[in-house]
């Protein structure tokens, strides 16, 4: 059997052959031992696979899995829609943009000098949310050990 014939047998089994070709392949599949053996193997494989895909569960809790989706949806919803550029903006872009860009460059170059130093900011963790009623939380900071502790108490 050549390759074309083998693929024909497969296509016939899958119901993908046009009627004009299907009849001749059907005859071959029943009369030729090689074709018949190949067909049997293909059928066995197809039957083995049918409905026998291994089931899998998401390796994360419902809340965990959903939290990321939710965050992304909220981020997308909070994104402002890009407005159409008005005519005056085109004019501005053409004539004033170079000057504006130079000004922006200057700001970028010199801003770090004027930015408040972060070295002296107070360091305190901020509690945000505790969604469970049966969980209480105690937060404290040890200056000496330079450590912030969040103690979670399941009641």
């Amino acid at each position, binding site marked *: 059997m050549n390759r074309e014939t083998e693929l024909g047998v497969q296509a016939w089994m899958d119901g993908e052959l046009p009627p004009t070709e299907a009849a001749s392949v059907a005859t071959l599949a029943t009369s030729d031992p090689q074709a018949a053996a190949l067909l049997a193997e293909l059928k066995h494989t197809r039957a083995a696979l049918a409905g026998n895909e291994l089931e899998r569960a998401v390796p994360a809790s419902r809340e965990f899995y959903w939290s990321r989706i939710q965050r992304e949806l909220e981020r997308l919803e909070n994104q402002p829609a890009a407005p159409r550029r008005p005519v005056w903006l085109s004019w501005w872009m053409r004539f004033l943009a170079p000057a504006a860009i130079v000004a922006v460059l200057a700001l970028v170059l010199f801003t770090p000098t004027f930015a408040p130093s972060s070295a002296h900011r107070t360091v305190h963790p901020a509690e945000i949310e505790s969604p469970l009623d049966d*969980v209480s939380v105690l937060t404290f900071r040890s200056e000496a050990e330079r450590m912030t502790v969040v103690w979670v108490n399941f009641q």
Partner: protein
Amino acid sequence: MTTVPSRKALRGLATKGWLPACVFLACCCAAGLAGAAQAQAGELNLNAVLIWGTDEAKPKEGSYKELDAKVKKKLCRIFRWKNYFVIKEEKISLAPKIAKRLKLSSKCELELKYADDDTVEIKLFGEGRWTKTFKQRIDALKNGELAVLAGDDKDKYDDAWFVVLSVSLP
């Protein structure tokens, strides 16, 4: 051999060509500078260690490592347990604004997010339930401070679990 452009050609360039060229060059410079600034912000590399606090001796079975001596000293000064064993240690790299999950055990998962330049947001999931969210200052972590989540071990009376977060050293 360089050719000197004529005055007419220069005028043509001025009106037709130089503005876009100037804008383009300026944008490249701005982008380069912004990129450099962004590269400085970059990724946040954290270390997360799940620790078992107990008064018992190290069990023979299981692969429990001793906790780093410096960290153990800190915990000993605050908490009452004699021994602290590492159950799992993981390194995680956080890109800005992207949350990543970290499974430390079947009962303990974290979701970490480099929320902005100042803070990392930490969500604790205990036994599959979202338990707590809190923020930690990044500058504090970068200064060597530790963020510790802890609680009683529900399975073993009188023991405790700890998750210690710190900035990974290069």
